C-alpha cells in the first residue's frame, strides 16, 4: 500500500477492518458506483513535504511582496504593523483546527473570543449589536442591503458612487438574485463627499436603504449626520467603514447610522492578496432578528457560571433552511480572532495612536504635494489616510517608474471612474516609515 503521512492505515488494519465489515476488498465499498465512468485522476503524483515547500516557495518568490516595497496603495486592503503576538496566538491549533461551536461546552474558547470580538466591533462602531463576522467588506454591504429590504419591505437600495466599486458590484450580484434594484447616486466633484442634491432626487417611496462610505473609497470622510438628516424616517442608513479610521472618527452609531459594515482586514490581518480578511457587521439592536450570520450571547451553565452560546439560531440556515435571514454558514471566525487579539494588544490608546499616525503621514504627503509640479490633490473634503491626486502625466507610466524604485504607487482610478483620468488613490499607514515617505517624494519629484 502507498505510504502517506496523513493516512494511518496499515495493510493489517485494512484487512481487519474489511473483515469486521464483512467484505473482502476496498473495491467492494464502491460497488454501487456506476462502473463505466472515467475516474482517473490525471494529476501529479504525491510529493514529499520538502519538495512541495520548495515548489511553493518558488511560486511565492515569483511575486514581489509588500515587504520588498515602499507601499502607498490601499483601496480596501491596508498593510498595517502587526505585533508578533497576534499571529503567535491566533495560529494555535485549538483555534485553527476547531469548527463552528456546535457543542458549546467544548467551544467556550471560540464562543468567548467571538463575544469579545462583537464587543470590540460594537465599541468601534457605536452600534449595539455586532455579529461574529461575514466573508468580507463587500459581501457585508450586500447582506446589509438585503437586510434593509427585510426590515422595510421595499425593494430598492441606493448606493453612493464613492463606495468601493467592487462592493457595489457584489451588492448588485446579491440583489440580482432577488430582483432588488440597486441604484447609485453621485459624489460632489469638489469635496468628494456625497452629492446631497442627487441623493435627495433619487429618494422615493421604494427606497429601503442608503449606503455611503466612512471614509468613502476616495478617502473622503462623509458627514453622516447631515446625510441622515435628509433621509425620510424609516430609510436605513448603511455606512461602509474602515475600522482603523473609527479609532479617531465619531462612531457611526452616534451619527444616525443603522448598519455599519466594512472590511476587517486592517485590524491585524495580513493582506493575503485580498483574503482571508473578514466582513464586520453591526446594527441597532432592534434589527437583530433580521441580521445575517452567527451571533454569540452570554448565558450561564447549570452551575450558574458565566458561559457563551450561539443565539437566535432560528435566523440561520441550519435551523430555518429556506426561511433563514441569509445562507451564510462558514464565516471568517479565525480572522475575527486575529482582530480581537490585535485590538487587545493595541488597546484604547494604541489604536488611537495608530489612527493618528496614519492621519499625520497622509496629511504630510498631501501638504508636500501641494507644492509639487505635475500633480494636484483632487478633493477638498476631510480625509483620513487616503486621498486622490490627479497627475498631469500618464499615471500608468509614473507607477511603472515608481515600481522600478520598489515603490507601490497610488492606485489608478480610471478603470473604476472614467471621469478620474490619471487620478491615483494614495494611502499611507503607520507601517510606512518616514524615510520611505521621503524616498517616495524625492522619486516623485524626479519623475514629474
Amino acid at each position, binding site marked *: 500500500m502507498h505510504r502517506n503521512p496523513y493516512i494511518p492505515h496499515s495493510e493489517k488494519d485494512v484487512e481487519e477492518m474489511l473483515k469486521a465489515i464483512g467484505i473482502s476488498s476496498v473495491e467492494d465499498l464502491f460497488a454501487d458506483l456506476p462502473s463505466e465512468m472515467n475516474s*482517473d485522476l490525471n494529476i501529479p503524483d504525491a510529493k514529499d513535504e520538502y519538495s512541495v515547500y520548495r515548489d511553493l516557495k518558488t511560486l511565492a518568490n515569483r511575486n514581489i511582496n509588500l515587504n520588498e516595497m515602499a507601499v502607498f496603495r490601499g483601496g480596501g486592503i491596508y498593510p498595517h504593523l502587526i505585533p508578533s503576538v497576534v499571529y503567535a496566538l491566533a495560529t494555535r491549533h485549538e483555534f485553527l483546527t476547531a469548527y463552528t461551536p456546535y457543542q458549546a461546552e467544548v467551544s467556550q474558547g471560540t464562543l468567548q473570543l467571538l*463575544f469579545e470580538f462583537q464587543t470590540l466591533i*460594537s465599541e468601534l462602531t457605536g452600534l449595539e449589536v455586532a455579529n461574529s463576522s461575514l466573508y468580507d467588506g463587500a459581501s457585508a454591504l450586500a447582506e446589509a442591503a438585503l437586510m434593509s429590504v427585510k426590515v422595510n419591505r421595499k425593494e430598492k437600495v441606493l448606493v453612493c458612487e464613492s463606495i468601493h466599486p467592487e462592493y457595489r458590484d457584489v451588492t448588485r450580484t446579491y440583489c440580482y438574485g432577488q430582483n432588488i434594484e440597486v441604484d447609485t447616486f453621485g459624489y460632489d466633484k469638489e469635496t468628494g463627499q456625497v452629492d446631497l442634491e442627487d441623493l435627495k432626487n433619487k429618494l422615493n417611496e421604494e427606497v429601503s436603504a442608503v449606503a455611503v462610505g466612512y471614509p468613502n473609497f476616495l478617502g473622503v470622510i462623509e458627514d453622516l449626520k447631515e446625510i441622515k438628516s435628509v433621509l425620510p424616517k424609516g430609510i436605513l442608513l448603511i455606512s461602509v467603514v474602515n475600522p482603523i479610521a473609527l479609532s479617531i472618527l465619531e462612531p457611526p452609531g452616534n451619527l444616525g447610522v443603522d448598519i455599519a459594515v466594512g472590511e476587517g482586514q486592517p485590524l491585524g490581518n495580513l493582506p493575503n492578496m485580498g483574503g482571508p480578511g473578514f466582513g464586520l457587521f453591526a446594527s441597532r439592536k432592534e434589527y437583530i432578528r433580521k441580521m445575517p450570520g452567527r451571533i454569540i450571547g452570554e448565558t450561564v451553565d447549570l452551575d450558574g457560571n458565566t458561559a457563551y452560546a450561539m443565539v437566535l439560531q432560528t435566523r440561520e440556515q441550519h435551523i430555518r433552511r429556506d426561511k433563514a435571514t441569509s445562507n451564510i454558514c*462558514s*464565516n471568517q471566525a479565525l480572522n475575527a480572532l486575529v482582530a480581537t487579539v490585535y485590538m487587545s494588544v493595541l488597546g484604547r490608546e494604541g489604536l488611537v495612536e495608530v489612527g493618528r499616525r496614519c492621519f499625520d503621514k497622509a496629511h504630510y504627503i498631501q501638504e508636500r504635494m501641494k507644492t509639487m509640479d505635475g500633480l494636484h490633490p483632487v478633493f477638498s473634503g476631510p480625509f483620513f489616510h487616503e486621498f486622490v491626486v490627479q497627475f498631469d502625466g500618464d499615471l500608468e507610466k509614473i507607477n511603472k517608474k515608481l515600481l522600478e524604485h520598489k515603490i507601490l504607487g497610488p492606485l489608478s482610478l480610471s478603470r473604476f471612474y472614467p471621469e478620474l483620468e490619471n487620478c491615483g488613490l494614495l494611502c499611507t499607514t503607520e507601517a510606512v516609515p518616514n524615510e520611505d515617505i521621503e524616498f517616495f517624494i524625492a522619486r516623485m519629484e524626479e519623475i514629474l
Partner: protein
Amino acid sequence: MTIFERSSDGRSAYTLPDEDSHGFALEDCLPEHLLRKDKADLPECSELDVVRHFTELAEKNHSVDKGFYPLGSCTMKYNPKLNEKTSSLEGFAYLHPYQPTSTLQGSLELMFRLEKLLCEITGMDSYSLQPAAGAHGELAGMLIVKKHFEKLNDTGRTRVIVPDSAHGTNPASAVMAGYEIVEVESSSEGIVDLDGLDDLLKEDVAAIMLTNPNTLGLFEKHICEIARRAHEKGILLYYDGANLNAIMGKIKPGEMGFDIVHLNLHKTFSTPHGMGGPGSGPVGVKESLADLLPVPRIVEGDGEYTLSEDYPDTIGRMRSFYGNFGVLVRAYTYISLMGSQGLRLASEMAVLNANYLKSLLSKMIPEGYPGICKHEFVLDGGKLVTDYKIKTLDLAKRLLDYGVHPPTIYFPLIVNEALMIEPPETESKETLDGYSEIVKKILQETKDDPEMVKSAPHTVGTRRLNEALASRQLKTRWKKEKAT
C-alpha cells in the same frame, strides 16, 4: 473572565516605531463634529496578559489536533502543518490585491493550476475560486442557474428541487437566488425517490441540488438516470461538494451529469476549519456555463497570467478581490502532497473508516439505513430513548467527558434522534475502536447512573448551558457593571 475584566488603565502591550510626527494633529485638521469624543473602550493589557487570556481560551476548545472530531458532513480531517507554513510565506501573505499583475505571477499561476486540478478531480471544465465558503459557492452556482435561463429567455422556471435530507444551506442559497423550494422526499432506502422526483420535474423547475453521496452517506445510485431525466427537461443539476471526500479518484461529479459544482476546500482539501472559517467554496461548471462564472477570471497567455473581467454574461462579483487566497494556497499544498494516489487513498480510507465504525456502533445503536455507506453514516437514536431512556443529546454531551467530539446530531431531519458520523481517513483504527468503547461504556452508564449521563458533561469545565436564557436576554456584548 473577559479580556475587558483583565484590563487595567495605564498598561500597554503595543509598541510603535520611534519616529517623529509631522505635526498634523487631528484636532487642527478635522472639523470637531467628525472627531471621536470618547475613545473606543478597548482593553488595556500587557502582552503577557493578552497571551495568558487567549491561551486560556484556546485550552477551552476541542480541536482536531486534540482529539477525534467525527462531525458528519464537516470532514474534520487532520490538516498537514505544511499548509500553514506555505500560506504564511511572505511572498503569499504580504501581497496587495491591487499590485500590478506582473508582480503577482506566482500567485496567479498557483490559482490557475488549482483551477485545473479541481477541474480534473471533479470532471468540470472551468472554475472560479472567488466564493469564500461553501454556501457562498452555492449562491454563485444558483445565480449561474438564474443567468442561464435568463440568457435562454426561459422565464417560467421559478423553483428548485432540494431533497429533504439536504444541508440547510441548499434551500437558503436557492432562495437567495430568487427561487422557491420544492422538497423531494427520500425513499425508504434513503436516496432520492425516483418516482417522487419524476412527479416534480415540471417546466417550472430550474435546477436540482444534490449532494452525492447524500447526507445519509448513501450513494445516489440512480444519479445517471436523474441527470438524464433532468436534462431532458432542460433542468440543470447542481452538486453540493460537501461530501466530495467520499469519491475522489472513484467517480467525478462531471461524469455523473452534474452541470455546476461547488467545493469546500476547508473540508475535502484540508485547509483548517478555523472555528468556522475562513473557508473557500470554488464553483465549477461545464463549458456551456463557463461565461457565467464570477469575475475576474485568471487568463493565461504566453506564460503570463492576467485577470480579466471581460465576460459580458457573468453573474458578477461574489466578493471583493479574488477569494480567500490564503486558503487556496493551503488547498494547493495539500493536493501537491497527496497527488492522485493520495487523494484516491483518502477517499478509500474515509469510506473504510465509516463502514468500520458503523459496523461497531450499529451493534449498539441501530443504523438509519442498512448496507454499505460512503464517508459518513447516520444512526437512528430512537433506541436510545426507548431502551436507554436518554436522548441523543445526552449521549453527545457525555461523549465530551471522554475527550472526543460527538457526531452531528439531530441532522438529517428525516431520521429520528439522528447521529451523523464522519470519521475521516486521517483517523486510525485504534481511534475508532476507542470511540466505540466509549459509546459502549456510556450505554452501560445509562443503566448504572442515568442521572449522571443526563446531566453530562461534568469534566470539561463548563456544564450544559441555559440556551433559552442566552436568546432571551440577548446579551451580545460585554458591558461594564454599573457601580452600586
